[in-house]
């Protein structure tokens, strides 16, 4: 399957939250008790049972208010930190570009939660499994759109082949920039190119998104330096012991004296 992309065009989003309901519906996730966080936002963060929600920011300028709305879910990174951090090889990346957790392998250690620069995966402490948006991989691999895209009424969510859709996103961006000069694409270069790409109306920090998300340095150090170097240290010590025992056998040291 070719590399896919979902464009989240926030300039077309009306904040109706139908996408969040469709997600619950398709993925059979129960509703959770919500509360008002700010503006029209009723969900603060992801949870094991809430994989997508809409953030609302009210931006005032020249006596007028503008909503900055963003559907939040897993970005499905091209270079995912969660996959690198996973203790159990439970996270894989599909050809189509989605990052999915295999719940048979997941042990709920939470290493993905701590290392995701966007704080997306959440561990269910009862099930001891980590949960997040699957990109509706079960739909996508059967030539259907993800549930959120399918339900979106305004065209704020679009699904297609990566190269086609990225071109469209760029055309749309130059259109939007005429009225919103700060508008930009987010996800084209971030984290190795994400599968969910955003057209934001303003700079990412205004939305509370990290300006330059990367694989944490500590994660690279842990997996690519500490692990191999530590392995060599332990292997070296073991080899020294084996050589020591052999040297002593050859020298006959074990027979000579015993005190």
């Amino acid at each position, binding site marked *: 399957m070719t590399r896919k992309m979902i464009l989240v065009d926030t300039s077309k989003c009306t904040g109706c939250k139908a996408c969040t309901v469709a997600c619950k519906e398709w993925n059979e996730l129960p509703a959770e008790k919500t509360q008002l966080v700010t503006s029209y936002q009723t969900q603060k963060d992801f949870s094991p049972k809430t994989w997508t929600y809409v953030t609302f920011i009210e931006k005032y300028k020249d006596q007028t208010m503008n909503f900055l709305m963003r559907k939040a879910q897993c970005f499905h990174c091209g270079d995912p930190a969660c996959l690198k951090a996973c203790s159990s090889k439970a996270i894989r990346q599909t050809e189509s570009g989605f990052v999915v957790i295999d719940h048979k392998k997941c*042990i709920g250690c939470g290493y993905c939660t701590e290392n995701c620069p966007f704080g997306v995966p959440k561990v269910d402490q009862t099930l001891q499994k980590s949960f997040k948006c699957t990109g509706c991989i079960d739909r996508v691999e059967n030539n259907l759109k993800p549930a959120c895209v399918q339900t979106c009424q305004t065209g704020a969510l679009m699904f297609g082949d990566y190269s086609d859709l990225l071109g469209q996103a760029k055309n749309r961006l130059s259109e939007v920039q005429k009225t919103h000069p700060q508008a930009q694409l987010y996800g084209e270069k971030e984290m190795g190119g994400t599968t969910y790409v955003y057209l934001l109306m303003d700079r990412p920090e205004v939305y509370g998104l990290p300006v330059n998300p990367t694989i944490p340095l500590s994660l690279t150090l*842990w997996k690519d330096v500490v692990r191999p170097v530590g392995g060599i*240290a332990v292997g070296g010590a073991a080899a020294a012991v084996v050589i020591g025992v052999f040297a002593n056998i050859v020298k006959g040291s074990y027979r000579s004296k015993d*005190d």
Partner: protein
Amino acid sequence: MGINTQTKKKESQSPKILRFTKGERISHWVHALAFFLLLFTGLGILNPSFQPIMNVFGGIQIARLIHRGAAIVFVVIVGLMFVVGNPSHHWEWLKSVFKFTKSDWQHVRAFPKEFFGGHGDYPPQDKYNGGEKINSLITIFGSFFITLSGVVMWMAPWFPAGLVRWAYPVHDLSMFMMVAASLGHIYLGVLHPDSRAALPGMFSGYVSAKFARAHHALWYERVQNQQQKL
């Protein structure tokens, strides 16, 4: 050092000398057993290829629980041994391993030759030689950092993600260093023809005077002098 009955004559002709008190031996073995339990229960999370082995504990989730339980023993019991009973020897050990002398360095330089069964030249050593001090320091710093990082990993939601991320490499680095040191430590205690005479010191508390004189002459002399003054 107010130690009496440091040496005692066993029935036969081989004199023995007290090296480790009961408290020290308890600390050593509690720490050692907890360490290996922590290591084995940690392996299933270190690498998924170890996960089938976790069935001996009743599965990976039980292993994770045992890891946390053993961590408490590893820290609290051994920590308590520094304050309850007769802990003065614990503190003497702690003080002495932080005092790295010239003769310790000379021992360390000659040590590789000794390790592989040769004979290195070094001046008479005190109760702990240079190599033992290094092993002790790895244990002290390793235990300190593995505990700090382990607590952060355990209580991850209480700490910012930016800190928890650093706990993982710290936990692993401490673990690798301590495992490497413990391999050498076990070899010297159990398999090395010269130094394994020290092993009874961790069981009965006593080592042979002959061993003490040959390996820890400074300590041996001091204990002997104290005996004579009594």
